[in-house]
């Protein structure tokens, strides 16, 4: 049961990353590899501040802000200096590796003693439930685990609703149009370059927020933790679209969260069944490959059958 709760919590925390990837990949049509660096940056900033006794909320916010700066840099490289979006992301991701090491001062910062949002959640859980664990439909559930899961769900809901509302404002609508038809929105007076920069800042801010929360949940920040995270995000977005479709903005956001949680559950189950953890990234990559290719393949087969 603890395993399930853990998987759900991590799935929810990483759904913030998935929403970030949704913004860059689906709304702006940019596969932004900055993600791999900015999730670590968020974790690194938050962890370093936490070890130095900064308030957890402040540390988390600072982590998210760091990601926004990273996204802005990628955006500026792409729009102002006309560097291919993919390459701009690679450059910033590579640079962030050094930045992250500098922020942390070493390759790993443990958060054993520090007060974090996770410890806050645990304390709150004890306080509300009044005991170390409680009975839920016949399962013994740690009140701390439940409280952390609940808080993560709450945070994700807040961010998801914010995102949904934001993309329905004038500026948000113009940002969506930027990815959909940049010529059109430029002719209607929007600064396409600025919108792309804003979008990548928003995307990487979400990713770094996810990293900051993840570090607090798992109790450490690590220089390597970002490797392959963009593929993780892509997988979540794609699963989400398979689950609920992509007909409306709200549905897609909900789908992305569901995709992330479901994917994490699948991974937890696979690991439980004896999947070698070293194969995880390979399998994630294969999965995304299949998800990208299969629809086209199936369509071609179908049209052949009809003929």
């Amino acid at each position: 049961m603890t395993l399930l709760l853990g998987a759900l919590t991590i799935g929810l925390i990483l759904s913030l990353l998935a929403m970030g990837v949704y913004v860059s990949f689906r709304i702006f049509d940019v596969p932004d590899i900055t993600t791999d660096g900015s999730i670590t940056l968020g974790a690194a900033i938050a962890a370093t501040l936490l070890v130095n006794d900064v308030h957890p909320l402040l540390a988390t916010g600072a982590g998210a802000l760091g990601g926004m700066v990273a996204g802005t840099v990628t955006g500026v490289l792409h729009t102002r200096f006309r560097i291919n979006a993919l390459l701009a992301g690679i450059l910033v991701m590579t640079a962030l590796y050094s930045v992250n090491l500098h922020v942390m001062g070493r390759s790993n910062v443990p958060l054993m003693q520090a007060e974090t949002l996770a410890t806050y959640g645990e304390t709150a859980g004890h306080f509300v439930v009044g005991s170390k664990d409680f009975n839920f439909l016949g399962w013994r559930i740690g009140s701390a685990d439940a409280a952390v899961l609940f808080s993560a769900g709450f945070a994700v809901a807040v961010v998801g609703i914010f995102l949904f509302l934001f993309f329905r404002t004038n500026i948000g609508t113009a940002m969506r149009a930027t990815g959909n038809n940049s010529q059109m929105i430029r002719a209607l007076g929007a600064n396409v370059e600025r919108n792309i920069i804003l979008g990548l800042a928003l995307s990487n801010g979400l990713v770094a927020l996810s990293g900051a929360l993840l570090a607090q949940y798992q109790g450490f920040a690590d220089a390597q933790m970002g490797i392959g995270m963009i593929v993780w995000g892509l997988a979540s977005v794609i699963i989400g679209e398979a689950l609920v479709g992509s007909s409306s903005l709200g549905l897609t956001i909900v789908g992305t969260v569901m995709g992330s949680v479901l994917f994490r559950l699948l991974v937890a189950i696979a690991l439980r069944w004896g999947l070698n953890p070293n194969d995880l990234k390979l399998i994630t990559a294969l999965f995304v490959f299949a998800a990208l290719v299969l629809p086209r393949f199936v369509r071609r087969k179908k049209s052949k059958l009809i003929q």
Partner: protein
Amino acid sequence: MIEISGIHKTFNPGTVNEVRALRDVDLIIDEGSFVVVLGTNGSGKSTLLNAVAGTFRVDKGSIRLADHDVTKWPEHKRAALIGRVFQNPFSGTAPDMSIAENFAMAASRGKARGLGWALSKDLMTSLEERIATLRMGLEGRLDNAIGSLSGGQRQALTLLMATWLKPSLLLLDEHTAALDPKSADQVINLSSEVIQRDQLTTLMVTHSMQQAVRLGDRIIMMHKGQIVHDFRGAEKKRLRTEDLLDHFEEIRRREQLDENTAAMLNDLYI
């Protein structure tokens, strides 16, 4: 009112692909005038439109629009003064977004976009009324993705979007060329209706002599990046399709002559 003076544009200068697309073009368009631009392929008529729209900066010369010197303004800033309809019906609308959302963006053309709701109640009601006048049955489908509509419908909507806020200048770039004859007719009728009703200053590029004769109060003919004819007033009204064809033929002959003379001179002296 728009004043174009002495603009030059050369694409790929100094390479084998060098194209002198605009060569010293002067043009003054009065407030409320509807100018049709004709010309052969590569005559520079679309380049002229794009120069005004700000797709690129001109090499020389200046462009003044509604008392602003817009020569150095980027495209998105000029959009505050200019409404545009493109040749490609897919260019003017965001396909995955709803009709209403597309209009919401048109309703804030050239304005600072803030955190207000894109789809305000006021917009929706005026939108429904306006779209009903198209008689295309689209008023009940404002939430549908615009990409699900036909090219003609999309072009009609693009025109409404471009003129939703009255532009100082309306640019129509062969906006019916990619449509079937019936849709092209509809869109042209709608265009002239909107232009007349709002007294819009308009610059329209077309390939169609019939459109040129039927519409507008002035025709300019372009050739090799220059304006070679300018018909206006009574002369424009008298003009028939045949006359225009004659003028094209004349241009073509003069050009042939030039080339032949050049070849002859080349043979004789070099």
